[in-house]
Every structure is written in structure tokens, then in C-alpha cells.
């Protein structure tokens, strides 16, 4: 892996909405010879798992984050992914601020010569992001604002990678 390769690896945290399709195309364009590109888009849903009543419509969501630490943790996740799998490139985008339903929240893309490496690294980054990246969601429904609770399932999914090497 050369320095030039690593310069592409990108972490972006911003308030502006992004276009997942444009991001995917930009990512494939900068990796023309990677046979396998895996990607993930997390979208804001229009109903709540947490608010009372459960399933209440969400009018908007605010993502608070820890500037500096968020970027640092996401970069560390990509570095960890690169050490575990033969990747050509990886990219993560995460938004903060106020979002409305069906807007994209997060985008992760991985490029590799190997399909299984691309898939595993992409899922790994998402799983660890869910337990390590300092972002907090507050959903707004008719009943007011509610901080989203962390889910045990996310912690378990992240833990499964601890003893897994490719």
C-alpha cells in the first residue's frame, strides 16, 4: 500500500445533505480497478423505535456530535479495517445537525479486489461506528424531543468483530 493510495481514504463529517449515488460514483471513479465495491447507506426513518407511543411519526431528527473526536474515531475505524482486510480504499461520510425523514445519515464504501473483504470491511466499519463514533440522535415527534437509546444489538454486533480476522 503506497502513501498515494492512502491519501484517498476519506472521512467527512458535515451538516450538509449528501447524494449517496454521487458519492458511490465518485468512489468507484477513484477506484477504477477495484473489482469489488461494497457500500452502505443509513437513512433516517419516519417513525421512532423509542418515542412513546412507539412508532410515532418523527418530524425531524437532530444529530449532535463531538467535533474532533468524531473524525478521529472514524479515521481510526478505517485504519483498523485496512489492517484487517486487503482494501484498496474506504470512505465514510456522517452528517450532524437537523435531518428530516428519508434523508441519508451515513455512507460507507469499501473497495477491494476481493468481494468478501469489501463486504466484511464495510459491515465492520458500520458496526463499530455504531458503538464508537460520538454521535447522538434526538428525535422530534408531536410528543416532543427524545434522545434515542443505544441498542444492545449494536454492542453485540460490534463485539463479534473483536475475535474475527479475515
Amino acid at each position, binding site marked *: 500500500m503506497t502513501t498515494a493510495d492512502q491519501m484517498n481514504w476519506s472521512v467527512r463529517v458535515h451538516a450538509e445533505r449528501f447524494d449517496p449515488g454521487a458519492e458511490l460514483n465518485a468512489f468507484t471513479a477513484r477506484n477504477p480497478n477495484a473489482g469489488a465495491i461494497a457500500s452502505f447507506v*443509513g437513512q433516517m426513518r419516519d417513525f421512532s423505535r423509542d418515542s412513546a407511543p412507539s412508532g410515532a411519526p418523527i418530524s425531524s431528527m437532530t*444529530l*449532535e*456530535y*463531538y467535533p*474532533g*473526536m*468524531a473524525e*478521529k*474515531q472514524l479515521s481510526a475505524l478505517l485504519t483498523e479495517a485496512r489492517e484487517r482486510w486487503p482494501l484498496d480504499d474506504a470512505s465514510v461520510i*456522517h452528517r450532524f445537525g437537523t435531518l428530516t425523514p428519508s434523508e441519508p*445519515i*451515513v455512507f460507507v464504501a469499501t473497495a477491494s479486489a476481493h468481494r468478501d473483504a469489501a463486504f466484511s470491511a464495510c459491515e465492520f466499519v*458500520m458496526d463499530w*461506528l*455504531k*458503538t*464508537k*463514533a*460520538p*454521535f*447522538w*440522535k*434526538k428525535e422530534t415527534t408531536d410528543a416532543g424531543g427524545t*434522545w*434515542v*437509546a*443505544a441498542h444492545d444489538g449494536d454492542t453485540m454486533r460490534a463485539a463479534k468483530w473483536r475475535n474475527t480476522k479475515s
Partner: protein
Amino acid sequence: MTILYFAWIRERVGISEETVSPPGNVTTIAQLIDWLAARSPGHAAAFKDRARVKAAKDQEHVPHDSSFLGAKEVAFFPPVTGG
């Protein structure tokens, strides 16, 4: 040393950031939480359920029994819910 608060911990404390100088016998994150919790009713409410409070020392996750000595900033926040 700068203390940062996020999400509902920030809301309960009532501020997002403060500069503090804890006494010399306060060296671990857990001791720092005890010391901060005594500062105001808001602090006390924020730190009431320790199991739901996570900490970072200079932007790295750290357990409650670790030392914060030498830190420029310590942050307290609930379990993260991004992605």
C-alpha cells in the same frame, strides 16, 4: 482542564463546556464524576446513573477506572447512537 458534555448529559448539566481544577486526590474518571456531581443539582442529575455515562480522555474512549491525569479535555456523554 476542559470538561465537555453531550446529548442529555449536556442538557441536564445545563452547559456544554466548563473549565475545572479538581483537587489532587481526584485522579480517576470515576472520582472526577463524583467530584463533578457535587457541583450543582444539574450535575447531580446528569451523573445519577453512572452506567449510562461514557467518558473520553482527549477524544479517546476510556473506562471509568482509568486515570484522567494529563488530559487537556475530558468528555462525558451517553452511549453513542450515530449511524
